[in-house]
């Protein structure tokens, strides 16, 4: 097995993305609120693209019912999602900085946990919690941008999933309509597309492409 060093990984990214982009990604800190279907996929993309630091928050543990769509493995069932995901991310980039918060996010702790992040990905399951996170960030963290996921349930075409700038500091990814309560289930493929939109919007923001 060939040894990957910090330097070879850096050089490989520079060859693909260019030095300017790599440095912008490397110096970034991005938060992920919720490490389920959306959050676990977002984290993998951001780690691969070389985001320097991720703040990961989820109180939950990996369950066998998560394996159909979330980036966890059978041997991780029972582990805290934050810790299980951190293990996977370190296999992609052993030098990534990770801050793990295995706690329930509330209006009281969100601004402290994500205070160092310029962008937060909202990746919760419940609509009420999505709204709570957005309101808390926009009122308590005056410079932070939220990239949120809303509407990725069911088997409707993935072509319905879009990214749009919905507010001054909110980018909304999803179809905006398919609620899991109505559409029955979340599928790995469609959730991954929405997570891809979110991760890609983070990339664009970090590279200065805001619209």
């Amino acid at each position, binding site marked *: 097995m060939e040894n990957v060093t910090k330097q070879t990984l850096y050089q490989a990214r520079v060859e693909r993305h260019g030095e300017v982009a790599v440095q912008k990604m490397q110096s970034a800190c991005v938060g992920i609120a*919720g490490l*389920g*279907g*959306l*959050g676990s996929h977002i984290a993998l993309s951001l780690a691969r693209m070389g985001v320097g630091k991720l703040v990961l928050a989820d109180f939950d543990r990996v369950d066998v019912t998560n394996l159909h769509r979330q980036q966890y493995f059978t041997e991780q069932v029972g582990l805290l999602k934050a810790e299980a995901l951190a293990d996977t991310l370190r296999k992609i980039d052993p030098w990534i900085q990770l801050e793990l918060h295995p706690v329930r996010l509330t209006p009281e702790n969100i601004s402290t946990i994500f205070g160092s992040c310029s962008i937060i990905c909202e*990746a*919760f*399951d*419940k*609509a*009420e919690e*999505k*709204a709570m996170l*957005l*309101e808390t960030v*926009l*009122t308590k963290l005056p410079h932070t941008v939220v990239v*949120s*996921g*809303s*509407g*990725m*349930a069911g088997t409707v075409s993935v072509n319905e999933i879009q990214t749009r700038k*919905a*507010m*001054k500091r*909110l980018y*909304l990814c*999803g179809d*905006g*309509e*398919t*609620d*899991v*309560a109505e*559409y029955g289930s*979340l599928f790995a493929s469609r*959730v991954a597309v929405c997570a891809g939109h979110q991760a890609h919007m983070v990339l664009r923001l970090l590279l200065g492409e805001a619209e």
Partner: protein
Amino acid sequence: MKWNGKQITLETPVTVLEFLQQQGYNAQRVAVERNGEIVRRSDFEKELLRDEDTVEVVTFVGGG
């Protein structure tokens, strides 16, 4: 008032909560931006929307 990009007429000011209820929104699942500033949920009952305002109402659905 400009509401999610559409021009509508508000004859008299209404509270954010009244407006959301009139339009059939679930107030627990939305975020409201008025003239570029987020309106806190705890202020939905007292903050007024006026005809000259620009309002964005974002609705969230479950799943993640």
